[in-house]
């Protein structure tokens, strides 16, 4: 159990130190390693690609850019970036096994974990995980050899983007 919590705790500490800092070239490298996934800058896409050891395909639409990372295992992660803010406002995943949600959800892993454990404590039984909070929506489901889901930050959706597009 300790191990499940060490990572996000360290991640938060590192970020709170780094955020206000002046970003030198060296700092940028560090921040790319630390900042990845939902809510983070478009530059973190490359860090995610490196961590997943995957290939990257980018497609552009009028209101956002989708960076699709495909790992050798076939797990696909799509990161949706707003051109206005340069931030990843949504992620979606699909594969035989889930991606590492600590990486995909970045700073949002902690609230995700909190909500998931609250639900796990509420009920025994296997089922999808749906989190619908003011600042975070996560939908995660599937079964052995087939996991899918998506997460987005409602306030960060570019104007006119329907949530159905995130998949």
């Amino acid at each position, binding site marked *: *159990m300790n*191990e*499940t919590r*060490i*990572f996000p705790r360290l991640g938060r500490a590192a970020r709170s130190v780094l955020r206000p800092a002046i970003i030198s070239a060296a700092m940028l490298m560090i921040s790319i390693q630390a900042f990845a996934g939902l809510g983070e800058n478009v530059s973190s896409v490359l860090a995610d690609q490196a961590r*997943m*050891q*995957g290939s990257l395909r980018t497609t552009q639409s009028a209101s956002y850019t989708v960076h699709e990372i495909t*790992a*050798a*295992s*076939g*797990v696909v992660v799509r990161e949706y970036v707003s051109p206005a803010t340069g931030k990843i406002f949504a992620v979606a995943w*699909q594969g*035989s*096994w*889930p991606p*590492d*949600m*600590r*990486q995909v959800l970045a700073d949002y*892993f902690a609230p*995700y*974990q909190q*909500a*998931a*454990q609250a*639900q*796990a*404590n*509420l*009920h*025994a*039984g*296997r*089922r*999808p*995980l*749906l*989190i*619908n909070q003011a600042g975070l929506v996560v*939908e*995660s*489901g*599937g*079964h*052995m*050899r*087939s*996991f*899918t*889901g*998506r997460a987005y930050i409602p306030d960060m959706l570019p104007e006119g983007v329907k949530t*159905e597009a995130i*998949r």
Partner: protein
Amino acid sequence: MKGACARVRKMIDGCRIERTPIKNGVLTAAACGGLLFAVACGGTGSSTSTQTPPPTGSNVATLTVNAGPAGNYANGAFTSVTVCTPGTSTCQTIDGILVDTGSSGLRLISSLLTVSLPQQNYSDGNPVAECLPFVIGYTWGPVQTADVEIASEKASSVPVQVINQSAYPLPSTSLCAGNPGGPADTVGNLGANGIIGVGSFAQDCGGACALPPSGGQNPDLYYECPHAGCTAIAESLTQQVANPVSLFSADNNGVIIELPAVSGPEASLTGSLVFGIGTQSNNGLNGATVYPVDDNGNFITNFNNVQYGESFLDSGSNAFFFSDPAIAVCGDDTAFYCPNSTLNLAATNAGYAGTPTGTVNFSVANADDLPNDPVLGQLAGPNTINGFDWGLPFFYGRHVYTAIQGKSTPGGTGPYWAY
């Protein structure tokens, strides 16, 4: 205290509430007139309910739907499994094992085991452990070997997972360490004494776990665990945690789950887990429609004019789970739906390539109004926008066949579901 969460809390406390009649069968004008979904206003219920006597035979195990060994489960089907030290008559029968067509492999809570099971070792002699992620929660622990007996079926030297959080340190890089739900390592938080995965596959992971580890190809579920800590390994198919059915000496091409229809909430339900498809006089297809399943264990469900390509039948899911933004989720518990009145809905299932197709009628009750019973045929909740998860309520009143990948049956080669 209302609602599904209150219901479970009450069950844990051991104080059962009064049974109240649910709103099934009372289809209001609002529900029929709401008409986004109501298709079966004239007649509800399962289209294939069976009243035949339960099968008997050496390939039949009893299934019981109840609150389970922890008393906290809704819509869980449990059976007994006997595990033996391989090649000996030193055996132990464990009841309260959840029967799960959505996974493959036998997983047992370590503290309940009294028989000695040999540890599986990697080629260098280090013990092997597995991390198995579910959507919410995971199981972690050593891979050991057991002879497995259910009904009169036997499988020798089956790799099984012994769920034990502390046997070896969980690697911080594993998918389990990144799972949001935490470990399912006790009877209480698993809701069962173990899980027997009798799903579409012979192994839990398959070919991907036999590829070189730590390179992005292998999901890194299997580890060798020397004292220094666990590192990911390639695990061959024969070493992987196996669906015990696939290793039975007979009746090894799949299973049938047979449960009676329900007319409302019930305290328990008894049915059968039948081994083999078309191998005995009691396990023929009997005209059931065969729906081919893809290599990821999915077929198609069409619902509300949306095609859900990652849909599945899963006795281990405890409700119907599907996306419908028009149905209110419960205020106190976002895992379930709470419509104003019971909804009668319909969906169409199809094989993964589009054929055959068949309509399924089902009902969704207000979860807050359901009584404190473990058999709830109208329990439903929201899901992702990718798939329709047909949980145990789908199995009530049906014979549901799960054919294992690569195994031949009179209905063709698995994987498929038939009902």
